[in-house]
């Protein structure tokens, strides 16, 4: 079904990553590199959301809870306990997965689905934001500043090109995970749960476990994104870490591009950044840009419910069903 799993598809993917690797060598304007980093970063976070929201169909409205957790783990371990930032990455990932386990265990045990699950995740991220705002270890509303000391050992780069390479690598790993889902039993089970939970259970899928594992994987990935954010901006505060805007961006990127697909989050991220940056660039009044942004989003959601990626995909030709089970004539493309 997926055209890019052919050798030619592989060549395209390889060429794409090779091209991306060359970007820092030729693009020297920090402003352009910064946009490229943000596009890949959104795509990475969108892919993290996509694992639980797209493949497993558990559409969260509060994925910022994972991003923020990763960000705070990295920031706190560094500033309070003197850890090397690289070494904070595994605990950040584990922290995100643990939060995923907690949220998943509570809400899936209670049988929450659909909009109820979306609401409960939103509630969790808001609780996390309020906690971060009031706890001493997160320095409350002051936020945490990571001291500037550029160098590879400190996961800080004076040259944005290096950040670009890091985020490209993260994106590649996320891409690989999504690709693996398309090809594996675990992925097939997640999709089965999304499409019809009862049928999946009847066919031997432990639906609770599948959803839980999807949310843990998704949470761990999102948390790593949070760690990257801290190293890139060297600052984290509650609204940045746990803000609703982050959650919305993650699900928008994935759904606009095409949720439950490997390339959807990248397509969505490019599209969203194009729309928001161009509207902001060409329109003086900031409110007007937002309105235009909203209109474009409505149009995309309204006319392309499967995301922008559905523009590029060949629709499978429906074989005329003759009702008798006799071999039907196949579409011309076969």
């Amino acid at each position, binding site marked *: *079904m997926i055209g890019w799993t052919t050798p030619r598809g592989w060549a395209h993917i390889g060429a794409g990553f090779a091209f991306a690797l060359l970007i820092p060598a030729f693009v020297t304007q920090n402003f352009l590199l910064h946009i490229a980093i943000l596009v890949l970063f959104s795509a990475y976070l969108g892919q993290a959301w996509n694992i639980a929201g797209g493949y497993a169909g558990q559409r969260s409205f509060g994925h910022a809870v994972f991003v923020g957790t990763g960000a705070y783990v990295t920031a706190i371990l560094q500033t309070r306990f003197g850890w090397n930032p690289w070494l904070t990455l595994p605990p950040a990932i584990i922290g995100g997965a643990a939060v995923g386990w907690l949220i998943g265990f509570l809400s899936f045990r209670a049988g929450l689905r659909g909009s109820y699950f979306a609401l409960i995740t939103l509630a969790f991220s808001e609780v996390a934001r309020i906690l971060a705002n009031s706890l001493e270890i997160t320095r409350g509303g002051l936020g945490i500043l990571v001291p500037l000391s550029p160098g590879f050992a400190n996961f800080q780069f004076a040259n944005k090109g290096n950040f670009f390479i890091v985020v490209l690598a993260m994106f590649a790993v996320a891409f690989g995970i999504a690709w693996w889902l398309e*090809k*594996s*039993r675990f992925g*097939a*089970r997640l*999709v*089965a749960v999304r*499409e*019809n939970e*009862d*049928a*999946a*259970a*009847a*066919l*031997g*899928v*432990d*639906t609770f476990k599948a959803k839980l594992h999807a949310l843990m994987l998704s949470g761990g990935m999102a948390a790593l994104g949070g760690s990257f954010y801290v190293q890139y901006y060297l600052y984290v505060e509650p609204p940045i870490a746990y803000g609703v805007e982050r959650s919305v961006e993650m699900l928008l990127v994935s759904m606009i591009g095409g949720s439950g697909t490997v390339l959807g989050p990248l397509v969505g991220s490019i599209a969203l950044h194009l729309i928001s940056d161009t509207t902001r660039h060409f329109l003086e009044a900031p409110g007007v840009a937002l309105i235009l942004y909203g209109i474009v989003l409505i149009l995309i959601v309204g006319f392309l419910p499967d995301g922008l990626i559905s523009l590029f995909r060949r629709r*499978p030709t*429906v*074989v005329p*069903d003759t*009702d*008798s*089970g*006799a*071999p*039907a004539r*196949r579409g011309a493309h*076969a």
Partner: protein
Amino acid sequence: MLEAQSLTKAFGGLVAVRDASIKVPEGRIVSLIGPNGAGKTTLFAMVAGFLRPDRGTVTFQGQDITGWQPHRICALGMVRTFQITQPFANLTVLENVMVGAYARIANRLEAAELARKVATRVGLGARLDQPAQGLTVAGRKRLELARALATQPKLLLLDEVMAGLNPTEITEIVQVIRGIRDSGVTIFLIEHVMQAVMSLSEYTYVLNNGALIAEGEPKAVASDPHVIEAYLGHGAAERIKKGNAHA
């Protein structure tokens, strides 16, 4: 192979199944019939782990599985189909069947191979790459059957796989089900289509208003006055007898 002891399930004040006990011996085709709303599907759901019985036990191959979750029961080798078909609508036929195959096979290529084989066996071989939502009623019934078979069960619970099919399709699927039994899978089916019940099953239970009212060989059961009354109303058995005497 499968034994249910005095299963009872009530929904609020409505007792859907009352004190029903059934036995399905290995290698047989056993059927469960009864008028609409008799509680057949509820009985199935309790056996397959989708509903927890209020009272009673379910034993499969000597193991008490009462209240087990469906996926564990499937792992033991008992799988059900749904009367109201539940396809994974956005997936292709092959992908649908592969979900079943993955119950016992982790490897993707092997699962695909088994899925292809099973789908072909139930007559879906020409539609492997078609989305499941494009299938007709008959196609969806076949898909239910294929997915269940792909889990490589020892006991197959079929919930009205023939409802809505035309006579030709029924004849075809009866052949398929016989073939499945001959390959060593025990079958327990709910069916409305009497033609199929008569020709397929070796033993029949009749459920009415949640209670078993008759059991035995299909021919004997069909002429049981209690059964006739359950289907055709009070006094029907009497009138049929009279009609036969006049003729």
